[in-house]
């Protein structure tokens, strides 16, 4: 397929797959950037990478037993994130070691299943690197419902999440149910990772969750402004990534991450030079 020109952009909107990709990508970008900002501030960015790689086992399991691979990824991600939290809380392992252990277990599960199945390697690749242009109506509906759920949680418990992200002990003392809130947030992390896999793939999901928040933090604004800026950067990178990848006929997930990284570098440089 040859590359398109800028004048071809309006014509892309005639294609349903393109519109669905934009809607799905925007929804994933909003929820990923919000959850990602909290993770950055909790110093748990690498949790995303670990859990996403663990989700590889879930995708393989889903393909193997014939259920939606994203559902498989969701279940395994949730088990993984709670496993990591449990190991940390009980002192079985430090944060980075706990992530490494769960990543290895999840990935090993995937490799074992692939070797047993002998047949879905190509399909598996689409989950490793994302396949946003193959989004269906159903995918977008599921993404919309879960995005609304995640945003609803963060809007209703905004002040509690901010309090415990800033000072967990202080939040506990103020009577905030820290453990319950953390468990709910961890579930959101697992859901967000599982949903973002379709958009950007297992390997690059950490970028979609971390880069927008990191970019917004360069602006040195209030928390509310940072949260809004984070979602705007996420949406911009995703939409631009989808359009540019269509124009130049290259991998969408890679272009989304490159755009997000480019925006981060630009904003960081501007803030230091201005």
């Amino acid at each position, binding site marked *: 397929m040859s590359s398109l020109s800028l004048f071809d952009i309006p014509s892309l909107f005639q294609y349903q797959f393109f519109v669905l990709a934009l809607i799905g990508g925007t929804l994933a970008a909003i929820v990923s950037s919000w959850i990602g900002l909290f993770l950055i501030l909790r110093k748990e960015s690498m949790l995303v990478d670990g859990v996403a790689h663990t989700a590889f086992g879930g995708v393989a399991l889903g393909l193997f037993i014939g259920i939606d691979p994203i559902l498989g990824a969701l279940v395994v991600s949730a088990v993984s994130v709670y496993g990591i939290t449990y190991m940390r809380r009980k002192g079985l392992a430090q944060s980075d070691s706990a992530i490494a252990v769960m990543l290895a277990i999840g990935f090993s599960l995937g490799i074992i299943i692939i070797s047993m199945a002998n047949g879905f390697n190509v399909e598996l690749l689409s989950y490793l690197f994302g396949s946003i242009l193959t989004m269906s109506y159903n995918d977008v509906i599921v993404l919309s419902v879960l995005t609304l759920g995640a945003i609803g949680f963060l809007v209703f418990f905004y002040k*509690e999440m*901010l309090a415990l992200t*800033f000072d967990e002990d*202080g939040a506990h*003392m103020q009577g905030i149910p820290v453990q319950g809130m953390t468990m709910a947030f961890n579930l959101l992390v697992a859901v967000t990772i599982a949903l973002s896999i379709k958009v950007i793939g297992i390997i690059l999901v950490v970028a979609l969750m971390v880069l927008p928040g990191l970019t917004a933090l360069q602006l040195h604004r*209030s928390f509310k402004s940072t949260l809004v800026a984070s979602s705007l950067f996420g949406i911009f990178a995703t939409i631009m990534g989808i359009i540019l990848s269509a124009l130049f006929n290259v991998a969408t997930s890679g272009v989304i991450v490159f755009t997000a990284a480019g925006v981060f570098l630009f904003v960081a440089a501007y803030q230091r030079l201005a």
Partner: protein
Amino acid sequence: MEPIIEVQELVVKRGPSEVISEASFVIERGDYVGIMGPNGGGKTTLVLALLGMLPKEKGSIRIMGEDIESFDQWDKVGYVSQYAINFDSHFPLTVRELVGLGRVNRKNLGRFRKKEDWKAVDEALEAMNITNLARKRIGQLSGGQRQRAFVAKSLVSKPELLMLDEPVTDLDPVSRERFFKRLSNLNQMKGLTILIVSHDLTAIFCRMSRVLCVNKQVHSAAITEETVPDDILRKGYGDHFHFVFHRELCKGVFVDEQS
């Protein structure tokens, strides 16, 4: 006077060792209490036990007339930990947002903030004279401004009891004096009961109404004109301790509120 904290034969352990041993004392409503003692003597442990954040091995703690196990009015207790100001200075939070966090508690879980919440925030900012810093990010504040912002956060729920753990460690003498003066005003004008862990003996003996000297055991004494600090201090620090006390120095470093 009505007791706000009653402690009877309290024993607190950290690991296998007893950090607080058989402590009994009473803090009355409106008291301004200095908690002092040697490093490792158990000051922070005592404060954490009074906040219900450390389990007690033996004895009883009653807060506002209620046993600590059943006490649920923690919004009436403000607390600034010694680690509170050591936050990540890149955290994107303005002073107003920080102070607003003091209004978050179990009772308003999942509820949107109301006008009265922000009014309380503005009052707390005013009480600590940091209204002009409301929009500043907390990472941009000086040490003294940080302390005031955190005290404002603990004041915003309109507590009846305020506990501060070594809040003046990093402050220069002028900022420290100014800080203690503000707390004195809150104590005298609003009747707020204040417990403050500090090594500033001048501030304790000149400004406060009671002292707790903590060195595994807790020695409590009211501070009056007749108080001989040596008697209290030697119980905590040992017999070699001698407090050189000049009445005229009791005024400390004077700073006016506007400067």
